[in-house]
């Protein structure tokens, strides 16, 4: 990747917020930490805070490992708990965990219990954002109430007064960011201009970098990257459990492939449609996040549709089934059938995508890319 000022800032913005927590209490006070981007950034910002999202990583989490069951929590939540247990979250304004997966909900309960039982002296307010995603007719109203409730709580923490105009502005800015992210995503479609490992941080920074800053940076990056030569490597789709880091991308790309799409709110799922306000902005936000949040509770039909649309442009598919996954593995036989029908090679990796691939997963990736390259060569000569 040829770095530019824009890509440098986006890359830094993607990880820096979470990685540097606990270093500067003044800076932390302005931050609301979320465990997954199913929490509307617009209300966090309209309440006067910056948004930072927890991310997984290869570093160890010894304090969390002593307190958490194995095979339940993905790397990002283990890192969040690690920071909580080691005092690095003491200064943040609030920690918000969405209900969009059981792991996040349990993590919410655990953090509260750590405080109650004195495992941690204190924590900033730990809030559950109870966003539901089922097709239940009552869910839309319920979600709108939950967005409103969270907004009120965050306003109470910041001392700001609710301002419909302020919220509308944040929605507009975030929509600008989404539009920029969609243009960046366009450079991964067809003949990709950018590797997945390079694209994901640029896209994922949407959640971390202030909205007004994100859109111009992403636009600048897009202009730059559009001039890059297209990549001829076998195009790989990452599906299964959502990813929040580039470990798997990097392994695929080191093996000669290029990741063109992934199940992830930090990657292909970052933008979705704009938030369309035809009345109450809170309702519009609830609708958007219910519809577009990608996690364990996302209705299977929605993910299946995304997969069917995305697989059109893939030469190979890599499915992630980490040990903590109790959900996405259910989709495997149906996806497998679809891939076999279309003669698209695929492989399953079993390690936590938040960590470096295991040796076995690495071998699977290399074999898959080899197979995809052969097929591609046979097809195009």
């Amino acid at each position, binding site marked *: 990747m040829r770095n530019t000022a824009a890509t440098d800032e986006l890359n830094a913005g993607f990880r820096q917020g979470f990685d540097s927590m606990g270093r500067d209490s003044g800076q932390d006070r302005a931050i609301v930490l979320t465990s997954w981007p199913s929490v509307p950034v617009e209300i966090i910002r309209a309440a006067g805070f910056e948004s930072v999202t927890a991310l997984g990583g290869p570093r160890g989490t010894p304090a969390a490992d002593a307190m958490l069951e194995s095979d339940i929590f993905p790397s990002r939540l283990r890192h969040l708990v690690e920071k909580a247990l080691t005092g690095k979250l003491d200064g943040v304004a609030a920690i918000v965990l969405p209900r969009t997966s059981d792991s996040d909900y349990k993590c919410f*309960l655990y953090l509260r219990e750590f405080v109650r039982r004195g495992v941690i002296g204190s924590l900033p307010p730990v809030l559950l954002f*109870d966003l539901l995603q089922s097709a239940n007719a009552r869910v839309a109203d319920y979600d709108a109430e939950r967005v409103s409730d969270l907004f009120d709580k965050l306003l109470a923490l910041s001392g700001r007064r609710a301002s419909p105009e302020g919220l509308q502005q944040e929605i507009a800015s975030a929509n600008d960011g989404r539009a920029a992210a969609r243009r960046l995503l366009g450079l991964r479609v067809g003949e990709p201009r950018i590797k997945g490992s390079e694209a994901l941080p640029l896209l994922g920074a949407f959640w971390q970098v202030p909205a007004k800053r994100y859109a111009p940076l992403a636009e600048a990056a897009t202009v730059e990257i559009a001039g890059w030569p297209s990549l001829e490597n076998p195009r790989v789709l990452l599906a299964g459990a959502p990813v929040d880091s580039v470990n798997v991308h990097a392994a695929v790309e080191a093996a000669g492939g290029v990741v063109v799409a992934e199940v992830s709110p930090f990657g292909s799922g970052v933008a979705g449609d704009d938030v369309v306000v035809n009345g109450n902005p809170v309702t519009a936000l609830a609708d958007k996040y219910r519809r577009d949040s990608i996690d364990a509770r996302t209705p299977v039909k929605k993910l299946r549709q995304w997969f069917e649309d995305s697989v059109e442009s893939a030469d190979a598919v890599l499915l992630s089934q980490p040990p903590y996954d109790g959900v996405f593995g*259910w989709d495997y036989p149906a996806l497998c059938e679809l891939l076999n029908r279309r003669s698209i090679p695929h492989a399953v990796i079993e390690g936590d995508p938040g960590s470096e691939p295991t040796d076995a997963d690495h071998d699977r990736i290399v074999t898959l890319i080899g197979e995809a390259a052969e097929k591609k060569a046979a097809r195009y000569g």
Partner: protein
Amino acid sequence: MADKQLESTIAAAAFQKQWFADLRRRVFDEQQAYALVQADVPFELFDLLDIPAVSNQWWSSLIAAKRQAPAFLDAMNADGWPDQLCRYCSLGFAATRYPGAGEAPWGGLPRPRLLCSRLTCDCIHRVFSLWAEAFDTELFEIDHPGASELPPRWWELSRHRWRDLVEPHRLAFVAATLADLLERLEAIAGRRLDMGALGERLEQVNRQEEIFDSARKLIAAAPKTPVRMTEQIANVMATQWVRGTDWALDHAQSFHDEISRRVDEGIAAVPDERARLMWVGAGLWHDTDFFAAFEASHGAVFVWSMYLAFGPDGYIRYGIDDPMAALASRTASFNEYLHNPPWAPEWIVEQAREHRIDGAVVLHPKNMKPSASGRLFIERALEEAGIPTLSIEGDVVDARAWNPAAARAMVRIFLDERVAR
């Protein structure tokens, strides 16, 4: 298997077998509707509209007890479903999807008119969507809002102050969803349900659970347990699936009275009882002999499981001015109370004290995420309360990775080293 010591246990098993035979007759011969549901949905709504409801967990436990689970689960794995997925909630689906792989109990499930599940854990939407597809039938989902207010000693609120136990927005959401479910059931049944009848049924459920509460107290207070845990479970399960019916009340009373007689006459399930054990987790349906395996060698008797104790604490609701809200307050946090902090550890420690427990065995079913999570909090709370605790890995229905000898050896060492008196 240990001999059944209670007449009521034999009666419960006979009732269930007959109930299922009647169900098949009604569905096949009379084309009546029935529903296949998760254990935590309000069965009362179905029963009052004459739509029999089969519990998924009960059905799984039957398949496992008949040693058929490995065959069905192997078929699932061979078709690509990963080994790490939850088996308790999906074994029934496997038996439907691969009918030739094994022998389903009592002729197998006929096609239900409706599937109904609460989205308690993440995988339920997937499992029930697949199952509905396999049966080509309708699915009704009850979403599961998360709790933000966490009263640790929940059982002190659940009977009289149940409105304080569940946040108003959650209570309203679940009650409205149950009203939607009722509307769907009424359409299937072709008639309306009188809310007065629901209120009366919930009062009957209260009476049944009061009887269980009394039975629990008898067991807790008796010098030696008068009834094995496995027999407690068999009686409670048979009754809970038809709770509040005349049969359920009569049976609960017979069960209670038999225990009472045994207490009066000084009859112990295991006369040589020297250690009282608690089982934390769902039943080990494929190896129920496990629970009696330490009686002869150590005088160690399993006295407690959640099944009997949860009925009174989880179900009783007094002051039923709004039956749907009362039902919703029971439904809203079912799983949290049993598995998650702060509710589960607080309740289980309380129960351990009441039952004079000497040691706890905590099941670690790795693939059942709701049961696997919260486990460390329970273990720590028990240990802090002075109750030695052993965690044992195993699945409730899948015997394939279960080593009965090794599991028994672990418990024997635990008894020798930490529990022996």
